[in-house]
């Protein structure tokens, strides 16, 4: 385990140190005193375990491919955005746009997620242990979101593909979102996804998918389009 004390270091210096340690062969790195800095551990392209001991700002672990990042605190906007593969775990809460547009990998928010979690996801898995905010899963293309708590308004609005599972209450479905109960097979799938991260979740989940009425322009679906625009 190699340790970086972030105190009095710039973001640039911290990220350069991370890259230097990886180049030297380190595969476990601990960042102390992150002091909610933005852009820590972005674009890490190596299978390396990085733990950040405290809260972080925007885009922690963003644009990564293969990193195993643990944030022992809360995260700001866009945590793990654009990730291709790897795992990012946030022990606390996450700001807007958690796991935005990820194409693969797993993002776990043990606490609550704010607005637009999983927006435009193109693959991968987002687990939210608590509640999630407005427009979760907006324009999601592929992948899965599992929300153990409650979901805010406009859930799963204008999705292409992808699935959102919600264990708690849904404040409001988004445009063209269709809800049903998760099947036993899907519940087993959820358990399998949650188990490695020690997230328990409720016993039952509902499943939200796209109704596909917005996939193509069609005047016959006038009501759906009026709502969407």
């Amino acid at each position, binding site marked *: 385990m190699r340790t970086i004390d972030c105190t009095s270091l710039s*973001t*640039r210096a911290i*990220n350069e140190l991370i890259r230097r340690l990886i180049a030297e062969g380190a595969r476990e790195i601990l960042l102390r005193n992150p002091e909610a800095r*933005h*852009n820590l551990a*972005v*674009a890490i*392209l190596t299978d390396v375990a990085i733990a950040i001991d405290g809260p972080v*700002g*925007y*885009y922690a672990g*963003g*644009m*990564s*491919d293969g990193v195993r990042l643990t944030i022992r605190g809360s995260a700001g*906007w*866009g945590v793990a*955005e*654009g990730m*291709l593969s790897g795992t990012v775990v946030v022990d606390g809460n996450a700001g*807007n*746009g958690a796991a*935005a*547009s990820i*194409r693969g990998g797993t993002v776990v928010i043990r606490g609550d997620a704010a607005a*637009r979690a999983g*927006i*435009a996801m*193109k*693959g991968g898995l987002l687990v939210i242990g608590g509640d999630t905010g407005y427009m979760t899963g*907006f*324009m999601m*293309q*592929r992948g899965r979101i599992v929300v153990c708590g409650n979901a805010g308004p406009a859930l799963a609005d204008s999705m*292409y*593909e992808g699935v959102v599972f919600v264990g708690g209450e849904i404040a409001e479905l988004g445009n063209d979102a269709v809800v049903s109960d998760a099947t036993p097979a899907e519940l087993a799938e959820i358990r399998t996804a949650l188990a490695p991260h020690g997230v328990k979740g409720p016993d039952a989940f509902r499943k939200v998918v796209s109704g596909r009425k917005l*996939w*193509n*322009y069609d*005047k016959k679906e*006038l009501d759906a*389009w009026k709502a969407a625009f």
Partner: protein
Amino acid sequence: MEGRVLSTLRPSQIYRPDVMEDIHLKAELGRYRFRGFGTLRPRPLPSFDDLTFITCSLTRIPLEGYRERCSTKTVLGTRFAKQPIELDIPVMITGMSWGALSYNAKVALAQGARRVGSSTTTGDGGMLPAEREHSRTLVYEVLPSRYGLSIHDVRAADAIELTVGQGAKPATGGVLLGSKVSAEIAAARELPAGVDQRSPARHPDWLGPDDMIIKIEELREATEWRVPIFVKLGATRVYDDVKLAAKAGADVIVVDGMEGGTAASPEILQDHTGIPTLAAVCEARRGLEDLGLYGQVQLIIAGGIRSGVDAAKALALGADAVYIGTAALIALNCNRPLYVEDYAALGTEPYACHHCHTGRCPVGITTQDPELMKRLPVEEAAERVANFMHAMTLEIQMLARACGKADVHHLEPEDLRSLTLEAAAITGLPLVGTSYVPGRRAGD
């Protein structure tokens, strides 16, 4: 004629035939109309045509037009990037997606730009590997959709362009109708094949200029502060937007005027949003000057740049380089009278086609149909693009030399005069034959 009541034959100037046709069509469609190309407003916009160069005579000495050196070297990204991009000419290819354009068109643009020492730009669909392979300098667009965005492609680029908007449809996302979302394009964008793809207007992980500061820092960290970061704006509130982008840390700001092209957009956006490129370049320069960053932050102007004349005027007004899009496609063969029967099948004809959105491009440029694409052989198309960009460069040099400049970047507003009162008001350049600028008192 006696006895005929002429007033009964007078068409309405409000409900003109084209307006009636528009209403008839929308009454059938139940939605707004789409098309490609760019604005088709009947009323001419204020444009670079409203300016003229006042070249040398006795007060200034010209350079020999066909002999003396006139540099066209263009360097972008000198503010923060470790490796600014260096181009041989100030004419660049703008972002157009693989999806909107065919594979052959994208590769031909890359090869053409490479031959003249310039750059091309990706678009709303990620990086086509062949585009990287064939481009000398490749600008990678980071758009709200993030289709196909990969850190590996970001790192393979020579510059990053964070796109806030585009001139043809500022404040709205892109559109790719289902006819062009082939299995291959759908796979690249991680979408179901055949959907009418609508890109979002907002980025998924940031909203305003304060967020953008952090986003730009993320892109710099992801690329080790190596490559320049461009910020692209659709031209609306240009003065304020340019100041915000510059303060957010952009190396280069791209301003795309309302004459900018698109492969598909609601028609009303193309005709009724944004401001003309002529006005945009003037506002952009003023914004940078007022921040004290003119010359430190480079400015690229786009939107309806058709020739070296337009480019030279944009440079004189403050641009460091210009993007071309539609003009480059026309060089490829867009609207050329070939396969005329296929234009007719689309209900149009050469020189009037704006059916890029259909995917049935008769000349193989804006299509994903393999048979249509064959009509655009890459080698010949690349040569035409290179020839056109070279011709544009010669035109810029000719005008610069005639203004006594040994470097095209030395062109300045003083080299221009306005031909119309409207242009004088927009540019602050005096009306020809006078010292008059609307709104400015003598002695100001």
